[in-house]
């Protein structure tokens, strides 16, 4: 598990796959075969392939580990509430407003929250510009207090 703490999201290099809640199950058998289930965040995310490779490299380096297998699964579906508190803090420090919502968000209730926290000035007088941003996981906002545009990790 410690090895996985060091595997960072390639697009947001300050958060680990653990902080992002991307690790489903970790099975280790007596022969040192490690099987890890990775839960992709957004299904269109092109970084999943790289993340798998990084996980294999990190875990294979742990003493006693034989073969490392990583498989992706949508069971359970990854949701933004799997991001840890520390993960949210790291996102904010990186300049990404963390996704809102504690606990599972009903599909029917998903929309852009009208206000997201500005990661630069902590202001809440913000405007939702677009649910679509430079990557599948980011929505665009504008902060009326510090007048910076910023991105929010989309709640899903």
């Amino acid at each position, binding site marked *: 598990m410690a090895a996985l703490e060091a595997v960072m999201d390639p697009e947001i290099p300050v958060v680990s796959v653990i902080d992002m809640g991307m690790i489903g199950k970790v099975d280790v058998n007596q022969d040192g075969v490690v099987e890890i289930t990775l839960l992709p965040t957004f*299904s*269109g995310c092109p970084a999943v392939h790289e993340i798998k490779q990084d996980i294999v490299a990190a875990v294979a380096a742990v003493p006693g580990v034989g073969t490392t297998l990583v498989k992706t699964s949508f069971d359970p579906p990854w949701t933004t509430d799997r991001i840890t508190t520390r993960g949210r803090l790291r996102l904010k420090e990186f300049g990404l407003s963390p996704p809102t919502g504690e606990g599972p968000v009903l599909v029917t209730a998903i929309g852009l929250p009208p206000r997201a926290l500005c990661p630069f000035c902590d202001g809440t007088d913000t405007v939702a510009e677009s649910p679509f941003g430079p990557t*599948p996981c980011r929505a665009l906002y504008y902060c009326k207090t510090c007048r910076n545009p910023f991105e929010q990790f989309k709640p899903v």
Partner: protein
Amino acid sequence: MMDDALRALLLALGDDELIIGHRHSEWTGHAPHIEEDVAFSSIAQDEIGHAAAFFSLVADIEGSDPDAIALGRKPDDYRHAILCERPNGDWGYTLARHWLYDTADDVRLEALEQSAHGELRAVAAKLRREERYHLLHADMWMRRISRGPVEGRARVADALIDTFAEAVAVFEPLEFEEDAVARGLLPVPSDALRARYVERTTRALDDLGLPIDVTIGADRAAEFVASAAGDLIVGDGTNFETRDRSSGAGGRRGRRSEDFEALWDEMTSTYRENPGATW
């Protein structure tokens, strides 16, 4: 050895997403304004990701690979609805098709969340959370258009009228559907899904006042009505004609329109030059 019913279902789902994703991506660099350029590019990326998810299920069972499934088949082997392969046309058509398709996708994903196939159920649940944003986008545009200038309303209204039959054909029965339904892979048969879709779309269009009483040109008003069977009835108030709803049908059995060949050629050209290459 792949089971036919499951394969037919997964390919229909994956191919729809792949092909419409490809069409959406054609707006990149060309959309009317930057926000919509980003929106369609992002939606396209999602749709291709969704196709990959369905093709991965096929690949896992067949022992093949998702890229080969997506890009290595001949045109006759695709199973998407003809709606998806139509060119983007003008912005009015694009918005109408976007709304019609993503509403259909929501109807079927909702049903697939109860599939007897565990992994398909999981994929459907995950994808539906992402598709929610596509639907918000499409709904927003339909609301804007319905309250906007006459030309915009007319273009979208025309597109809805011309395209509704093809959209309904998203729900034509699949190959081996009886088996898929019997086993709960497809928990709700296509006919029932189609009825849900027609009800939902006609009610929404009614609420939007679209395209009722839109004047197209100086001397014609079009009224749009869809019957429960999915037949489209278009009239000018006095004369009604029924559009043949089979015009956009056959996709689930591999029937393709004249629009697909060019799309297939461009979409698969890089892969075909060097099949199996890693990037």
